[in-house]
């Protein structure tokens, strides 16, 4: 059979298209099956048993955060645990846990007649691990996803760096690695237990999912248990539910329907 140049290019082009779309089509028809086949059964993240639902959440006692040194030790614990780079400028800054004031953390809920003391208190900011996370909704590769325990997690190896999630997050909780983060880290202070990231991917607070797996509390909570509490919102008897019953609390930008899991106690 003879084939001229044009026919050959046509066929080669079409087969490339189908070759690329092949796995996509498979995933489209039967999500998850392919991953199981590729990685073997053992590689799957163990699911929590259904009868014991877990929904992780955090409470932040703002008044306690105002005591000297509390906020700083939380931030320090988080940064050293997760190898957070410091680029030394606000444009390229990577933020997992940081502080701001009431007026900006709760932008839109300003109250000019508020007690000056509250205005000056530090508010710890982090990923809210929303029940309805807009970042997960927009991610084109499932690189950011919500786990069954409510944690909004990141796969740094799948992220293409499109930054759609950063535009979608109404809390400014996501950071992009504009430069190589490893150049902005002190090698001697590496935490070898947690991976460093590469440039061109997005990252954020992960509620210390790697520590939870070892039955440890998140690093910030461990550093300041007097101010922060972490627990299961799905369990009516858990520490956080008991605190939320006793204290009045606020969450950021509730009107957007994201249902944050971080509660500020006032």
């Amino acid at each position, binding site marked *: 059979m003879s084939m001229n140049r044009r026919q050959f290019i046509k066929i080669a082009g079409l087969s490339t298209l189908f070759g690329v779309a092949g*796995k996509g089509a498979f995933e489209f028809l039967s999500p998850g099956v392919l991953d199981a086949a590729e990685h073997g059964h053992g590689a799957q993240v163990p699911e929590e048993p259904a009868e014991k639902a877990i929904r992780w959440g955090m409470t932040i006692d703002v008044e306690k955060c105002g005591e000297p040194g509390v906020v700083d030790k939380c931030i320090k614990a988080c940064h050293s645990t997760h190898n957070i780079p410091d680029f030394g400028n*606000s444009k390229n800054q990577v933020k997992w846990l940081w502080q701001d004031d009431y007026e900006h953390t709760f932008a839109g809920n300003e109250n000019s007649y508020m007690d000056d003391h509250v205005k000056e208190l530090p508010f710890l900011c982090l990923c809210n691990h929303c029940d309805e996370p807009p970042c997960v909704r*927009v991610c084109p590769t499932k690189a950011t996803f919500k786990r069954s325990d409510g944690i909004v997690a990141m796969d740094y190896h799948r992220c*293409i*760096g499109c930054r759609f999630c950063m535009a979608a997050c109404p809390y400014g909780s996501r950071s992009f690695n504009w430069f190589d983060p490893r150049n902005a880290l002190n090698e001697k202070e590496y935490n070898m237990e947690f991976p460093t990231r590469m440039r*061109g991917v997005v990252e954020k607070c992960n509620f210390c999912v790697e520590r939870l797996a070892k039955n440890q509390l998140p690093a910030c909570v461990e550093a300041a248990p007097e101010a922060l509490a972490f627990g299961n919102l799905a369990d009516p008897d858990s520490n956080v539910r008991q605190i939320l019953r006793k204290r009045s609390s606020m969450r950021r930008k509730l009107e957007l329907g994201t249902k944050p899991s971080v509660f500020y106690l006032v």
Partner: protein
Amino acid sequence: MIEKALKGEPRYYMWLVFLLGIIGVGMGCWFYQLHKGLGITGMGRDISWGVYIAQFTYLVGVAASAVMIVIPLYLHNYKKYGKLVVFGEFLAIAAVTMCMLFIVVDVGQPQRMLNVLLHPTLNSILFYDMIVLCGYLVINVIVGYNCLLADASHRPHPGWVTPFIYLSIPWAVSIHTVTAFLYAGLPGRHLWLTAVMAPRFLASAFASGPALLIIVLLIISRVSKFDPGREAVQTIAKTVCYAMIVNLFLVGMEIFTAFYSNIPGHMHPLQYLFVGLHGHGKIVAWMWTAAPFAFIGVILLLIPAARRHHGILAFACASIFLACWIDKGVALVIGGFIPNPFDRIVEYSATFPEISITLAIWAIGALILTVLHKVAITVREEQAST
């Protein structure tokens, strides 16, 4: 077919060399960006999309506008567009190619881009955007190439192409609607969170794309023997005019809704763009350049005597093209990020490498357009001489 692009006058080659020069500089900057990271751009944690995504957004509109030639010709049998339709299709091909390149230079890990297809995510608008853009490119290549092939050998357009032509009409609407949904579906970005985003995108697209086509056709009629037809050009000009009026009307709707409701979140980005906010106003001069050009362009196109004068027509089209470009290619994306989620204002300026890369992609688009239109013109000239 493509060999027709290799024979040309010296000024044709000089134009190509000029474009290749710009592309060369931009390629160098892109390698620098790949090596260092996107931190070499003006983008940062607060303005996380910049001039790249803005150009992408604008050019999706230019691509979609080919449908303004296809609808009159194929749905209303407006024969005067018969010999223009391939020029519209080729403009769409150049524009979609530029869109794709702007995405490639904007993502942090371009080598992973196939993850969008390997892990198809049905809840992500970006997934659909990739599908519709690739599809639109394929449709336009099929239609443009086969119509031109038939023209060259003096045959009627093959019948099997017709379904693709009809498909291209809703498809063109879809690419710009889906692109608007990228923005309009995000909570907490007030400038973007509006139901008229997609209609406004389409209106400004159907103004700016045909305006560019008129400019290109006027240049072609000067540098070659191909005559696009006076009446055809006048009809496109009317399309530009009415689409731009609808676009300006929709801008007015946005301004009314934000300011009469008096909701700060809705007013702040518009205040930032038009008058500046808390002492920040880098975009204000841009907006007050766009506004007069938009109105002057519309008025000139509304006056028949002005519209018929080719010099004035070219100026009016360039004004509208520029006004729409400032609106979508500068203001829309930046304005959406101001103020940031903490109600602070962080401004953005593009850097030299970022602008070089942007110009290079525009030059690649111009190169594709020049080569494709050169082929189409040669075919038309051969038709006329036989």
